């Protein structure tokens, strides 16, 4: 079915009822071919604009319904726990591995530049600062968008295609409450937790590589880290990861719910869930970082920072 008008998945009334889709075809005789092409071109841009507008509207309704359900009634433990296990426990190894390698790569990349300036002992500051502020949260979220997000979209997409979502509706179980809210909660709670794990493993990885490979004095490594990296940097990174977690869950569930029929549709839902989550993570990261810095400056203006 091309466009579903499902009450419970947050989609609005059929947007194309009034407008009609596709480029207008020129009538023979009364319009010249050039004019017809121009009209078709304008019409296709118009159709695209309407489509984008409808997508944003549908997504907002979907998010609104998710929040409305979450605030009125929390899901039962037996629906929440499997999702927490899927998102949290199963992601642990891959997130730990990601974190460790980010820390080590940061050490390799910064070491040579800092050595030229004779500042090797400051390596701890730069590694840990970039790690907790930026790379830990963003790369952990990216990893999870790939692991958790596309799996969610594929799973919900298959449920949509095989009418399992309709079956939930038909038995009086709201699919948003039953399927989306537990996944959203799992991502919202566990992606920041996994980010802490990625940060920790990154710190360990960077330390081991700097101290044992580049033979930097361990006392100065930690001393400089402690001098520059504060609680604000760490909590700023974790704060951002709440948004990343929420974005991954909502985008992926939305993509799964609005999956087109067939194997191709499910594949497309999984791919677009990752791509859209990734873009949203990067864009929101920029604005959240700017916002956090502005907030920090307003509170403690003028304090010395390495960045």
């Amino acid at each position: 079915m091309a466009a579903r008008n499902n009450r419970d998945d947050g989609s609005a009334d059929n947007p194309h009822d009034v407008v009609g889709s596709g480029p207008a075809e020129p009538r023979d005789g009364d319009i010249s071919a050039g004019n017809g092409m121009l009209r078709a071109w304008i019409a296709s841009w118009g159709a695209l604009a309407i489509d984008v507008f409808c997508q944003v509207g549908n997504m907002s309704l979907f998010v609104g319904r998710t929040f409305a359900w979450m605030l009125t009634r929390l899901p039962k433990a037996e629906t929440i726990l499997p999702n927490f296990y899927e998102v949290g426990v199963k992601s642990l190894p891959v997130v730990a591995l990601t974190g460790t390698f980010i820390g080590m790569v940061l050490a390799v990349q910064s070491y040579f530049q800092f050595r030229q300036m004779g500042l090797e002992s400051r390596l701890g500051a730069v590694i840990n600062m970039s790690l907790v502020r930026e790379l830990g949260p963003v790369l952990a979220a990216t990893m999870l968008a790939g692991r958790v997000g596309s799996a969610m979209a594929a799973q919900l997409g298959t449920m949509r295609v095989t009418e399992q979502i309709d079956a939930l509706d038909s038995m009086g179980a709201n699919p948003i409450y039953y399927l989306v809210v537990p996944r959203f909660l799992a991502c919202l709670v566990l992606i920041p937790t996994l980010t802490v794990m990625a940060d920790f493993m990154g710190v360990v990885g960077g330390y081991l590589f700097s101290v044992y490979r580049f033979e930097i004095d361990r006392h100065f490594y930690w001393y400089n880290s402690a001098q520059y990296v504060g609680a604000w940097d760490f909590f700023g990174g974790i704060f951002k990861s709440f948004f990343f977690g929420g974005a991954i869950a909502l985008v992926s569930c939305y993509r799964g719910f609005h999956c087109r029929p067939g194997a191709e549709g499910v594949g497309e839902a999984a791919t677009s869930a990752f791509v859209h989550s990734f873009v949203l993570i990067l864009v929101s990261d920029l604005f959240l970082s700017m916002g956090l810095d502005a907030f920090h400056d307003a509170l403690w203006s003028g304090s010395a920072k390495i960045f």
Partner: protein
Amino acid sequence: MSDALVTASIPLVQLQRLQVRFDSNQVLRDISLDIERGSTVVVIGESGCGKTVLLKTILGLIRPTRGTVKFDGRELMKLSDRELTEQRVRMGYVFQQAALFDSMTIGQNVAFPLRQHRRLSEAEIREQVVRRLADVGLPESVVYRKPAELSGGMRKRVGLARALMLNPELILYDEPTTGLDPIMSDVINELIVQTSQREDVTSIVITHDMHTVRKVAGRVIMLYPTSRLSADEPQVVYDGLVSGLDACGDRRVTQFVHGEAGERLMELRRETA
């Protein structure tokens, strides 16, 4: 007249000037039907004529572009989520491909409506699940199996057992015999007949299997695809008793009933040319 009599006199399902459209594709056009309580209505028509869409609109899964759907006098689209849920519990839907939750066992699937809407002990749930499965001819041992391990016919029967779990007043069957062997098709037909007699329910069956029509139907409604109709022709081309089908003078109906292609292949080729 008392309230109870008034309620009993209105049809269970009322469709008024129903219209459903996806993009520029008009699926249902100006359909007005009343489904009486306790009746078994079979909706027939070729693939793509909007039978499934009609069924999903009655359940409130698809929002009509125009017109109203009333269930027991209440207009579905004007109800809140909570009220709609209450009404849906009074209906059961048997899906074409059964639509069993593949992450759950058969037992969990059949128990799902009970766990959602009734407060029962595990022992009571189990007892009801086993009883319902026995009604559709499935042994207790299937309870622990996953849907993927069952054959198509078994899955359909599990779907039926699940739909009957809350004793619905209205059961909607979406092509119940499609893709089954002739014997299993007849088993399903038999189950539909038995269910409608025993539970005193209203049934709407959509199918293109004439065996099903002759076995279960009281009233038959035939829909015709809107793309093959002119602007002023009604989409319902037959509405009457099953016995009247053979005597019907409409060529579109006799063609379907006897399964004759006629000049259809030529028409299809002309359309694609």
